[in-house]
């Protein structure tokens, strides 16, 4: 994270919780990302599609299939990231799977992603003890031991991604009861900001999560809204922003 981004994050954290919106890389993603930021998103996660996304539920899996069918291979995703960077000054974080980096070259991917405007990376299937030299936002889950929380917090890049549920991505009716105890255990070992994702889709979830974490990540629901266009995405982001600001 650059110094400017870090200051921006601190300023924002004084007045509000952070809202992270996940979008699957598509030709129209730059415009969608701008709409999301104008409606109140602070960080955009930028999905690079993978054919076999183990941690993803049906919404993101299908979005990935569409993206691949639309030609969103690694190089095109990096171009799309650069196009987004050209019109946005918010943090952009590519999120993908190990197979893409292994094929592209791990160091080359990191270098080219940063050159295209990436703020950090999230690699869903790369546990924090594997390739620790790759700077990235680490994920922890309700099943993570305290030892693994410490390991992830010690190596994470800027913030820690709390997976709220023991499960895969996708909207759920209630906020998982496993989030609060996970957040409490994470607070005990680290002072980095904690953002929670997986299963957060509604303003009620956002409000409830804001009680225990510093920010939220909305993925599947945002992808569904984005598929219907900028207006629907803006409406969703606005409702989440308002819920966080009222919390």
């Amino acid at each position, binding site marked *: 994270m650059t110094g400017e981004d870090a200051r921006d994050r601190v300023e924002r954290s004084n007045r509000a919780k952070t809202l992270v919106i996940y979008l699957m890389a598509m030709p129209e993603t730059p415009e969608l990302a701008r709409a999301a930021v104008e409606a109140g998103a602070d960080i955009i996660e930028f999905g690079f599609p*993978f*054919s*076999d996304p*183990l*941690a993803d*539920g*049906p919404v993101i*899996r299908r979005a990935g*299939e569409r993206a*691949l069918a639309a030609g969103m*291979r*690694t*190089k095109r995703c990096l171009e799309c990231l650069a196009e987004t960077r050209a019109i946005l000054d918010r943090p952009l974080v590519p999120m993908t*799977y*190990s*197979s*893409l*980096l*292994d*094929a*592209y070259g791990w160091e080359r991917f990191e270098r080219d992603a940063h050159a295209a405007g990436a703020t950090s990376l999230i690699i*869903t*299937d*790369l*546990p*924090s003890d*594997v390739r620790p030299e790759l700077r990235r936002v*680490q*994920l*922890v*889950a*309700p*099943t*993570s*031991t305290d030892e*693994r929380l410490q390991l*992830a917090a010690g190596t994470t890049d800027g913030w820690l991604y709390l*997976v709220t*549920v*023991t*499960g*895969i991505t996708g909207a759920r009716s209630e906020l998982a009861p496993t989030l609060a105890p996970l957040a409490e255990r994470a607070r005990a070992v680290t002072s980095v900001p904690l953002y929670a994702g997986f299963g957060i889709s509604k303003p009620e979830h956002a409000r409830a999560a804001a009680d225990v974490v510093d920010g939220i990540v909305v993925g599947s629901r945002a992808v569904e809204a984005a598929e219907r266009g900028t207006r629907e995405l803006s409406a969703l982001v606005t409702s989440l922003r308002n819920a966080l600001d009222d919390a």
Partner: protein
Amino acid sequence: MTSTFGVYGGRYVPETLIPALDELEGAWRSLAGDESFRAELGGLLATYAGRPTPLTRVERFSPDKRMYLKREDLLHTGAHKLNNALGQAVVAQRLGKRRIVAETGAGQHGVATATVCARFGLECIVYMGSEDMRRQAPNVERMKLLGAEVRPVEFGTRTLKEATSEAIRDWIANVETTYYLIGSCVGPAPYPEMVRELQRVIGSEARAQILAAESRLPDAVVACVGGGSNAIGMFFDFVPDADVRLIGVEAAGAASLGSGRAGVLHGARSSLLADEDGQILDAHSISAGLDYPGVGPEHAFLRDSGRAHYVTATDDDALAAFHRLCETEGIVPALESSHALARALDADAELVLVCLSGRGDKDLAEVLAR
């Protein structure tokens, strides 16, 4: 201390699964040397599964060289898969897990898993691609008879690749109560090593049997390779025997080792059918059990080291060998094993040992439709 095989293997999974893999690895390390575990498993293999399986000389099938088949087709449930399923079911019980999930391609691993779950009174959920359910309908019925729930997987290729992904997703969501009983020497550590150790019984028996029959080691050992569990089980005890050629036979349309590249799938780095961007490609084979774009990481290691060689057989090669074994020996082989038979016939060797990994009853509809 997760095991790797050279640059292959490892653990490429979401964080949620890491504690479960640590727990499994710890349990496996202590059980592997535990006398009571070995005695329990050995007893089950002898009295329930039907081990040791015989070695059969096939003179009419192979008149110009001495060929022996290791008869895993005669194992209970009709394939080598039971060796692994029994072993892992005992591990699951030691871990206190009562819910089992598994994936299946040809249905043989699903049947083996459903069988051991019935035997131990465990809940059993098997994920199977809808295309494979069509191709292997008798095995779907068998799993249901045995009390398993078969969940169709209706997306992507509708075959083993997607079934495996869905089984892993189920495991991620239910990891605290559920044991993932993987069917081949693939997946994150410690699975590839554990499955190899459970399948090693094939090669250790066969090595002693052929020494007893021929007073020497074979020139070549041949096995089919999908994920690669019967092959790794057959090969492993022959690895130190440098003069014994190890030949793995892949389906021509699913040659992860022959025409693949390094990549990451289902939790491990291995040789895969993938494009230059790391996107996984579709495999194509008449045999549902070989229809998988990945392979066990240890096979990729054995290939790179030159210790084992990997060749291919086409659908037509496999079908010809299938018919020939039926007509000359009165043995109906699985289509998977028929790939190994095809290449064993033209192997440049005097004494050949082939793993007949399964029987072909499940394949009759597919064969008769040709």
